[in-house]
């Protein structure tokens, strides 16, 4: 095989190199279409089937195609009519909400009607589509009053109807009805629905899919029938102004940042690491946006067994954790300290009057305070961390109030290659706990295994996890801490059970009046921050970067500039404002 190669190697090498040289000469950097917005993604979207899309990148693309009835006002985070023409009208007699629709069209020019809304709800309910069914389960009946009016009858009052249900999107009956019918006739209807191939999703958003070259790029064109064109919603006149969007895939942030600096993309739709900021700031063609996020990174306890079942132990651990240190040293200052499960950036729902354990104290003061708390609770030491003179010393042999020595335990974290911040936090917290003689050690493990162990098997002591994008509605408090969700696979991973909390959570689920629900949610936070099944640690800042040479007008809101408002508002620099 190699013999001819050896004999003619020089010739072949020369030929191949000539070909490559010719390619180099004939090609150059791609020509810019000044009206095309180029967005870099970290990974390729996995699907255009909206029911299957579980990855962030598919959702980013699909969010430009499928639209909801309502969205969030970027300034106030209140519900704002989107496909709907006005706010929902509530009829307490029938427990129903009536919504008038705008005169919107699908991207093929056919009208978007109340029948599409009814179809979407029925489809979700019929197939019990994961992620969506829970949000529509309590909607007993959906009726198209006329083409532009839809009425939802609720089986019971549910607060999330106004904050979560109505912000889920609507799909066209004309495209999905045949697919649903075919899927419904199979043995596995849900899988058939989720695996249905949708080469050209029909949507009502500002853009529509033009071409998707798997592994390379995704090209979207302006939807000529977009209902929002030139409309003013939330004091913003909508476009879109870019003729097309080109999604480019970068597998590493390093290369995507170089692409931004080199003007190969206009926006990298990904929250970048603080380490890139210096380089981007020095580049005059890029601009950085720092935005608040609705995120939660926390340490959780398995409160089903000692010592984690003891609130005093959890409080002492909280006192020992210096969140400001973590933010400064691990996150380079690009995060906010958290004193509640609800991020403080979620202005309406965050309770302000919560305890701040150990805030502003020195290391020694923290140890002394935690020592006093545990001593009062009946914990003893062979050698206490604070000696008779009140000085902090190296402790040993911590003993539980029951008289049993405290067993060594583990802090489970994702591995450093998945999230270096959480892995590092685990190591730091482990050392801080040892200051009090608490025998903790960190154990990083793969994310899948970690989740299975905590959520399904409930076989753990403590863990550090996070939610990068919590919903603005605080319904997750119910998921995380209601005793009904303390079951294998349930979201109450800590196993927290508090009848008073359950009562408030049940009431908040049904509180349709925002002010009343706000009070309940604040009270729930007070209970949680007293009991501390989770220690909230930090809420990272969303760091995003854009190129400044071609487009302007990015809309910054919670979670960053990657949102429908930006997509509808960014303009090519040459265009008159």
């Amino acid at each position: 095989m190699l013999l001819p190669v050896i004999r003619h190697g020089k010739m072949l090498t020369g030929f191949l190199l000539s070909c490559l040289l010719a390619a180099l000469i004939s090609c150059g950097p791609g020509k810019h279409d000044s009206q095309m917005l180029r967005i870099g993604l970290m990974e390729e979207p996995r699907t255009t089937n909206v029911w299957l899309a579980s990855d962030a990148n598919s959702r980013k693309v699909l969010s430009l195609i499928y639209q909801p009835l309502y969205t969030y006002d970027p300034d106030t985070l209140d519900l704002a009519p989107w496909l709907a023409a006005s706010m929902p009208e509530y009829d307490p007699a029938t427990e129903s909400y009536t919504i008038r629709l705008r005169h919107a069209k699908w991207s093929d020019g056919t009208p978007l009607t109340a029948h599409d809304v009814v179809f979407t709800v029925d489809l979700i309910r019929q197939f019990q589509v994961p992620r969506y069914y829970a949000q529509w389960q309590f909607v007993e009946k959906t009726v198209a009053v006329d083409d532009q009016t839809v009425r939802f009858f609720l089986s019971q009052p549910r607060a999330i109807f106004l904050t979560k249900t109505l912000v889920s999107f609507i799909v066209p009956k004309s495209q999905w009805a045949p697919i649903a019918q075919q899927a419904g006739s199979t043995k596995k209807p849900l899988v058939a629905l989720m695996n249905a191939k949708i080469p050209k999703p029909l949507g009502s958003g500002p853009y529509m899919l033009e071409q998707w070259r798997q592994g390379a790029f995704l090209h979207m064109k302006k939807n000529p029938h977009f209902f929002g064109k030139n409309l003013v919603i939330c004091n913003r006149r909508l476009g879109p102004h870019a003729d097309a969007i080109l999604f480019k895939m970068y597998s590493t942030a390093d290369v995507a940042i170089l692409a931004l600096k080199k003007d190969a993309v206009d926006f990298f739709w990904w929250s970048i690491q603080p380490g890139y900021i210096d380089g981007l700031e020095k580049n005059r063609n890029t601009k950085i946006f720092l935005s608040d996020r609705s995120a939660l990174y926390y340490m959780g306890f398995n409160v089903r067994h000692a010592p984690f079942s003891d609130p005093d132990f959890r409080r002492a651990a909280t006192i020992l954790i210096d969140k400001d240190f973590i933010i400064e040293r691990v996150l380079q200052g690009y995060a906010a300290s958290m004193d509640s499960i609800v991020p403080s950036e979620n202005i309406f729902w965050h309770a302000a009057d919560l305890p701040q354990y150990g805030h502003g104290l020195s290391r020694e003061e923290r140890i002394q305070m935690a020592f006093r708390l545990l001593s009062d609770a009946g914990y003893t030491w062979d050698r206490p961390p604070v000696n008779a003179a009140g000085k902090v010393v190296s402790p040993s042999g911590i003993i539980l109030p029951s008289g049993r020595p405290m067993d060594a335990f583990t802090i489970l974290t994702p591995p450093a290659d998945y999230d270096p911040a959480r892995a590092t936090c685990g190591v730091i917290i482990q050392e801080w706990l040892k200051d009090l003689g608490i025998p903790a050690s960190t154990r990083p493990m793969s994310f899948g295994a970690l989740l299975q162990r905590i959520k399904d098997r409930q076989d753990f002591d403590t863990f550090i996890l996070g939610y990068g994008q919590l919903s603005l509605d605080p319904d997750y408090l119910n998921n995380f801490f209601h005793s009904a969700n303390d079951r294998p696979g349930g979201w109450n991973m800590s196993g927290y059970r508090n009848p008073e909390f359950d009562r408030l959570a049940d009431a908040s689920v049904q509180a349709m009046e925002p002010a009343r629900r706000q009070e309940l949610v604040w009270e729930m936070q007070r209970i949680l921050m007293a009991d501390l099944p989770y220690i909230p640690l930090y809420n990272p800042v969303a760091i995003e970067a854009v190129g400044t040479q071609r487009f302007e007008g990015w809309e910054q809101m919670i979670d960053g500039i990657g949102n429908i408002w930006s997509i509808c508002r960014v303009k090519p620099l040459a265009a008159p404002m």
Partner: protein
Amino acid sequence: MNMKKLILRRSIEILAVFFIILTGLFLLFHIAPGDPVSMMVDLTMTPEDVERLVAQLGLDQPLWTQYLYYLKNFVTGNFGTSFHYGRPVIQIIGERLPATILLFTTATILAAMAGVWWGKRIAWYKGKAVDTWVTIFSLVCSTLFLPWIALLSIWLFAYWVGGFPLSGMMTPELWVVPDTGIVSKAADVAYHMLLPLMTLFIVNTGSYLLIMRSSMLETLKEDYILTARAKGLTERQVRNRHAAPNAALPVVTSVGLSLAFSVNGGALTETVFSWPGIGRELIFAVSNSDYPLAMASFLFIALVVLVANLIVDILYAYLDPRISY
């Protein structure tokens, strides 16, 4: 043993090994912690959602039932549907494979050609300064950390110097224009191959060079080389006609297997250069427990490597009649 018997015996062995791999892969993925549904979960997914999805994907069945389905599907050519893409895995592999083969096969061939070419010459200068320096340089290159050299080449040639593409296999701006011709598209792909090819070339050539050099040094001690020289042939003729063809046998094995493994792609190379190949997909499939995609990809790679082994064995026997099995 004649050639027919050799092929028959090796084919049976390959089938047995393939069955072991088939079973091993199944066990490996199903016993490992984490499951595809747990990797899909977010807060909007209730335990009931998870249960429903697990049942629909057949993951609630006993392991042996799943294994029997897996074997049955394999025999009938059904490799399943990717959990995350919702598409047949064969389709996904079919989309990704050409990109991988194009890059890695070209890189292997170029590196092997250059390695053989330099290797046979360097052996001629054994003990001289040029031999020492080239050997050291080859060793350094073949031990370079690939992502580092890849990122460095992107930064240096694509960002700092300019003129080379930053990443990917094509220029999207060019491909979205409807009237872009096939020649321009082919040239664009070749243009995007330059940096990854260069990186792979730097890392891979050294090992071929060293193998060829070492083999040449052994060959040069043979009597027929002495005979060739005694016949009055030029050094060039001795090297190219008598020594190099015989010395190339070990390189045949190395290149054969490298070509086979080129279907595996290189996860790191593909990731750094955003090359849309099978290596990147494999990483994604494994880390997200996308069993059908991961298992089908590994099976495909195993099959190609096993067949390549067979071909190399046959080729060896053909090239060197002294070899018998």
